[in-house]
């Protein structure tokens, strides 16, 4: 998957998790939490969806990498580039 495809995939997951949010103007460099209503259970949903959809296991220590779209895509790229 390319970076753009990974971003689209993460956006699709976010759309499911936060269905009330308008994500069209999401700032990729800002943290998700500053831009939308997300709590720790929602973050676990991101982890779970990546696990279910792509069998990606994210260790708890790495959850900090899922703070913003930019950091998420950068973190996932090595794992998803060959998918």
């Amino acid at each position, binding site marked *: 998957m390319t970076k753009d495809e990974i971003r689209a995939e993460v956006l699709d997951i976010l759309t499911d*998790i*936060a269905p009330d949010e308008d994500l069209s103007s999401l700032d990729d460099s800002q943290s998700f939490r500053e831009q939308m*209503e997300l709590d720790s*259970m929602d973050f676990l*949903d991101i982890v*779970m969806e990546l696990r*279910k959809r792509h069998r990606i296991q994210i260790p708890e220590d790495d959850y900090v990498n899922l703070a913003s779209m930019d950091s998420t895509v950068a973190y996932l790229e090595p794992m998803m580039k060959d998918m």
Partner: protein
Amino acid sequence: MIRSVQDDRRIVITGIGLTAPNGDNLADYRAALLAGRSGVDHYNIRYVGDTLAGQCRFDELRHQKRREVRRGTRAGSVGIYCAQEAVADAGVDWANIDRERVGVYIGVTEHGNVETENEINEIKAFDYDTKVWSHHHNPRTVANNPAGEITLNMGITGPHYTIGAACAAGNAGLIQGAQMLTLGECDFAIAGGVSESIHTFGIFAGFASQGALASHADPARASRPFDKARNGIVVSEGGCLYTLERYSDAALRGAKIYGELVGYAMTSDATDFVLPNPVQQARCMELALKRAGLNADEIGIVSTHATATTSGDIQECQAVRRVFGKSTRTKINNTKSFIGHAMGAAGSLELAGNLPSFHDGVVHATINVEDLDPECDLPGLVLNEPQEVGDVQYILNNSFGMLGINSAVIIGRV
């Protein structure tokens, strides 16, 4: 009789919020009951396949964000809809009410089966790898979930919990709310029952294995308590929550009052997991009458629990005959013939459908009785068409459940 209870110990119903397979508010629901409109329809659920059920069609997004719906349970959504509608109906100044003094008491037949079944189905696709088991499972399946979701949605910080009481739960929730008001644990109670059970295949499969799941070519005619050809239960979802207040508080704010809880009782059979016990059911009704200080003949309507099982209906009729057999004025009806068995919501929903009788003087019928079972031929049974009876002063609502749990509440006109 002359009642002499102090006004701050009298508990009254001031608001009703409900969703039933044939109506999402009291006016529509009552109109359906008087018009003979069933809410039972074709239904399909995993593993069981095609069957019948009463399904609610209320708008979840009326009181919840999509995120809340996704996060929570169907029982939570049913409860939130009913609680919000009941509070709005009560006309209370909700923005300024002390929410630390609001209690939420929700009757449920069961809770957690829907989510557990969903998760097992989900991990099946992953070769039962529990790493994909949802972190939402526990907050969704804890027994207090439906009541807790109401408090989250409405910012209520008083006590909340569910009352697990099989199919007597709707009455049990109402009774619990009244008791907590009487004890001073809260000043405003949201109480009744909810059910999401149609979303679990297990309840359908369980009744089918028991030989107690209804079938009929015409869904609207499938739920037929007291009919000779009845063949079981139609499982339904639903919810009905009441706002309860002390009469003194309700009168002070000039609240509309639907009725007063003048008596109630709960008893146990201690005889069988499934089969009811008419002796204990009768004792439950008699105890409620005794506590209300009423004679059987003073009850205008007995709302029966009958679920359309072969033996259950006969046994409840034995109990009702024992208590009301000599009553000349009491009418008897059954709401499950319209909506099926709404499980944890059944008691409170069936009571709600009868409360308008205090003002319109009409008793809704038991529909779908084409060939009355002689063993269910009770005096005063209102069959197929509603009856105008004029003055109704008291309604007794029966609700019974598995493991031999019996409940009866008596509501009086105020």
